[in-house]
């Protein structure tokens, strides 16, 4: 009779459901169904024939109960997703739904899940994936925030100034860097709530104990020692990398730009956990001479650097337009305007770029008119590069091209980002971004 006493009856909106306490325990203590059967509430027998009455939508309850039973989410076509999400929020099962909605990220299994059009004018600047599956898109002076259900929240702006970069500090907080507003004396960097869009903190930069206004550019976060990095340009040649603390938001350091290293105008910052260094890349077309360096903040030194200043080149020659440090922290991957990939060894200071010969074998891609420069990303050992309207996925130590993600709508991809097990690609022609997901694992 153990299974009998384990049995639980629900009357949801007039429809009877029967399940077991074990299945409901899958919902967890932090959910309504989990609390319902907790010992605090359990002694109280449900009224009316031993069933719990819940005045909710029975169809959605069926879907959610099935989710608790199998761990899989199957939404009948007659149930709108929004309705299901709302019901899941009522029961406290939204996290369960999100976890079952799509599978762990794999660049070779991605399929388009949604295409979200935006209303903002002009070209998008950047798109960033949030840690929980949401994303934010910077357009001009605004940042549009979407949660993982792709519902848009209140947009963010910092004095309606041109947004340069944006990033998720965590699922709840977004950092925005923007051009300074002349005559205000206030810095161009702020921390916002992702759900309400309210400004929570404004980052400041002080030089010689004097707070100065600045324009903030590229952003990076270090999760190991809780720091925020941003490239900064002050009015009085105060160029360099500012460092703030995650928790207090106060400035803790400033790396002033040494001669020969371009830091204040950087295109890309990336914190390398393994070596405790920050990679700074200032690239074409922002500068004619590309610079990539590795900064050690403890010793205030540039421990590794590369520049093409001395390499004479014609305009048609290879220009580095984007760079990322690979996940192992040993090399930097760069890409030129023709989507040729190149690698640099971070462990030796001598070597230049080893351009991959792949593009010579293939037909060199020609940039389309009004196209965007390629961008790179690395995730889970896979390398991604965007060119025109598609994203290429490269795998393995040889960086073999294994997949191409292309959507037919929206034109050239100006930025893309991977996070929360999703890939977001922002198109430049139409104001639209694509969401790519890995489907949940096969049934067996």
């Amino acid at each position, binding site marked *: 009779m153990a299974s009998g006493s384990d049995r639980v009856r629900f009357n949801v909106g007039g429809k009877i459901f029967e399940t077991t306490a074990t299945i409901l325990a899958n919902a967890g203590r*932090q*959910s*309504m169904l989990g*609390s*319902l059967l*907790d010992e*605090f*509430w359990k*002694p*109280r027998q*449900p*009224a009316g024939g031993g069933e*719990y*009455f*819940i*005045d909710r939508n029975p169809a959605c309850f069926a879907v959610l109960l099935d989710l608790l039973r199998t761990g899989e989410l199957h939404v009948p076509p007659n149930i709108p997703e929004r309705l299901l999400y709302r019901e899941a*929020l*009522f029961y*406290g099962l939204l996290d369960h739904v999100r976890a079952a909605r799509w599978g762990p990220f794999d660049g070779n299994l991605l399929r388009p899940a949604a295409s979200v059009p935006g209303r903002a004018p002009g070209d998008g600047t950047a798109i960033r994936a949030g840690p929980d599956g949401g994303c934010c898109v910077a357009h001009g002076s605004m940042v549009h925030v979407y949660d993982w259900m792709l519902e848009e929240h209140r947009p963010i702006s910092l004095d309606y100034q041109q947004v340069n970069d944006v990033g998720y500090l965590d699922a*709840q907080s977004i950092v925005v860097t923007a051009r300074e507003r002349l005559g205000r004396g206030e810095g161009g960097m702020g921390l916002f*709530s992702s*759900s*309400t869009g309210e400004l929570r903190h404004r980052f400041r930069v002080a030089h010689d104990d004097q707070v100065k206004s600045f324009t903030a550019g590229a952003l990076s976060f270090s999760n190991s020692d809780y720091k925020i990095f941003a490239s900064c340009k002050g009015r009085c040649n105060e160029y360099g990398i500012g460092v703030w603390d995650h928790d207090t938001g106060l400035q803790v350091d400033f790396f002033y730009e040494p001669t020969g290293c371009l830091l204040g105008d950087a295109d890309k910052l990336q914190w390398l956990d393994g070596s405790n260094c920050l990679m700074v890349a200032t690239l074409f077309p922002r500068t004619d001479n590309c610079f990539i360096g590795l900064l050690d903040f403890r010793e205030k030194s540039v421990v590794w650097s590369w520049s093409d200043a001395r390499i004479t080149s014609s305009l048609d020659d290879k220009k580095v337009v984007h760079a990322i440090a690979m996940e192992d922290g040993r090399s930097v991957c760069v890409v030129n305007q023709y989507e040729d990939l190149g690698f640099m060894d971070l462990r030796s200071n001598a070597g230049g770029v080893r351009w991959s010969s792949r593009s010579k074998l293939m037909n060199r891609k020609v940039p389309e008119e009004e196209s965007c420069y390629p961008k790179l990303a690395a995730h889970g050992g896979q390398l991604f590069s965007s060119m025109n309207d598609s994203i290429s996925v490269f795998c393995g130590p040889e960086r073999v091209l294994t997949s191409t993600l292309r959507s037919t709508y929206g034109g050239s991809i100006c930025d893309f980002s991977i996070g929360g097990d999703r890939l977001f690609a922002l198109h430049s022609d139409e104001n639209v971004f694509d969401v790519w997901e890995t489907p949940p694992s096969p049934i067996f």
Partner: protein
Amino acid sequence: MSAQKKRNFKIEAFKHRVEVDPKYAEKTWKILEHAIHEIYNHNASGLSFEELYRNAYNMVLHKYGEKLYSGLVTTMTWHLKEIAKSIEAAQGGLFLEELNRKWGDHNKALQMIRDILMYMDRTFVPSNRKTPVHELGLNLWRDNIIHSHKIQTRLLDTLLDLIHRERTGEVINRGLMRNITKMLMDLGSSVYQEDFERPFLEVSASFYSGESQQFIECCDCGDYLKKAERRLNEEMERVSHYLDAKSEAKITSVVEKEMIANHMQRLVHMENSGLVNMLVDDKYEDLSRMYNLFRRVPEGLSTIRDVMTSHLRETGKQLVSDPERLRDPVDFVQRLLDMKDKHDKIISIAFNNDKTFQNALNSSFEYFINLNNRSPEFISLYVDDKLRKGLKGVTEEDVEVVLDKVMMLFRYLQEKDVFEKYYKQHLAKRLLSGKTVSDDAERSMIVKLKTECGYQFTSKLEGMFTDMRTSQDTMQGFYASQYSETGDGPTLAVQVLTTGSWPTQPSAPCNLPAEILGVCEKFRAYYLGTHTGRRLTWQTNMGTADIKATFGKGQKHELNVSTYQMCVLMLFNSADRLSYKEIEQATEIPAADLKRCLQSLACVKGKNVLRKEPMSKDIAEDDAFYFNDKFTSKFIKVKIGTVVAQKESEPEKHETRQRVEEDRKPQIEAAIVRIMKSRRVLDHNSIVTEVTTQLQSRFLPNPVVIKKRIESLIEREFLERDKADRKLYRYLA
């Protein structure tokens, strides 16, 4: 028609169905408020979770989240105030129990309220930056109960009183204490620290300050330390039972400061029971306790170390400067070794083999061993003693142990070259008189010296061993070649010593008896025949001889004597009485040696093969000597030693010293030249420092001597003074 068109349409506002009932929010809230009351009144069995959850959900959905939240705060605050009253009313000892019970109730209620308001917690709270329900409940408990005027001080006093009672030996309810401190920690580390930990530490400090004062007046050092240790353990145990683990470091540091750091000097120097007494009496347990306790406080170990060092230096100094001890070198060294062993053992048993203590021990030994400039000689004599006879029947491992210990003392010596000098002399004596017990032990000692001081240091010692081996081969060769001619003549054993390797003083050879001389000449001919271009000189002062003698009543004895003694005795083959002068003339033995050798032949009881007239202890130039017909001995073999002081006589000592000084000169010069060759230009002080560092493995050069050597080198134009700066020396290639 146009007028009609212009008529304004009134657009009816869309009516939200739920908001039709204006009392809706109020009604729903009443239901929830009632539920909260019931929960606090332990009367929740009639409540329906689904209904309450739905009501809270609806309030948040219809934008009454703020009302719900503030209502919760008000209701909960009201209940907590009621609870506060009931806790305040609790009598005496029931206070803590009541507090604990109410805390349990509140936690349970809080959990249920959170369940009901889960939807608000998930949606309304984060977006409106409110405190989540659970945290809110804790904060309200803190503000209304723990920080309530009447409870705050009473709680603190009760806790501190209980701890005090436990310290004085009473048994208290530790489980209750645990729950209460756990509550304070749950309310946030700052609550625990401010409302309990800080005052707790203050009270503890004054408690231990008083107690330590009392202890130190009436306990000896060992007892005091035992008490301090027990208190320390008690506090650690207390932390593990009912305080936050983070408090351990803080409370132990209070005990350490009050009980140890504040009384360190007094403890260490306590009369009749302080550190020195513990060291003297080998009180390992007390010492170990002292070490472990003092280690916990700053300057603790250095206090022990300083006292130990000064004690060691004091006793060591007494030992090496005690004239009584200087009489017996072996005992002197043995005492040093014993002292070292004793303290090594203390350090390893009681002081955790602490490196800094070992260093202190070493530096103390280094300090006092070098206070006595005869230490090198004594250590060499000790080795001599051990290698000569002391090691008979002792296993090889034990020999190694003894030698290792000696090496330890050797390392402390500053004047290692003096030791080398003596060691060479003593080794030579051992080798030539065949008194070495074990070749392996000798070699092992040399290997040890070599590893310590390098090849140069031992090359001559090794040369001596080589000489001994070659001599054996030579003698075999010699007798093989003389095979046909061996007759009754004396057997000769020659040891060919390389000049320079041995500490030989050039001395005129004495006149050997004719029988011996013949064999000697044969050997000379043989040796020079096999080795061309060599020169042989006889070192008659170092040889020994076995001679057979027949005394009155036909008693036959074999006498083991030195070469000099043999020469003297052989004279009595042809005469019964000889005067001192006659002996001196016939043998040409140097007067001092002759006197010594006659003394041993005539004046030692039981070995007096000669008779002297007049009978006296000392030898005078007009004494006469007779063959002692009445000599008897129960041994067939009689060993007649030479009367020699084992230790050096004053003039000898002086001579050795001088030779050492003389030997140092070229070494110092070589060092100076080496340094100047690489540096080219250097000032005086730097040269002195560098020479000292280069040579300190062998000896500590005297700066005055270095200066003299520099001057000598300038004279010989190895160096010159800089023309501009007279303090600088310049190397002349």
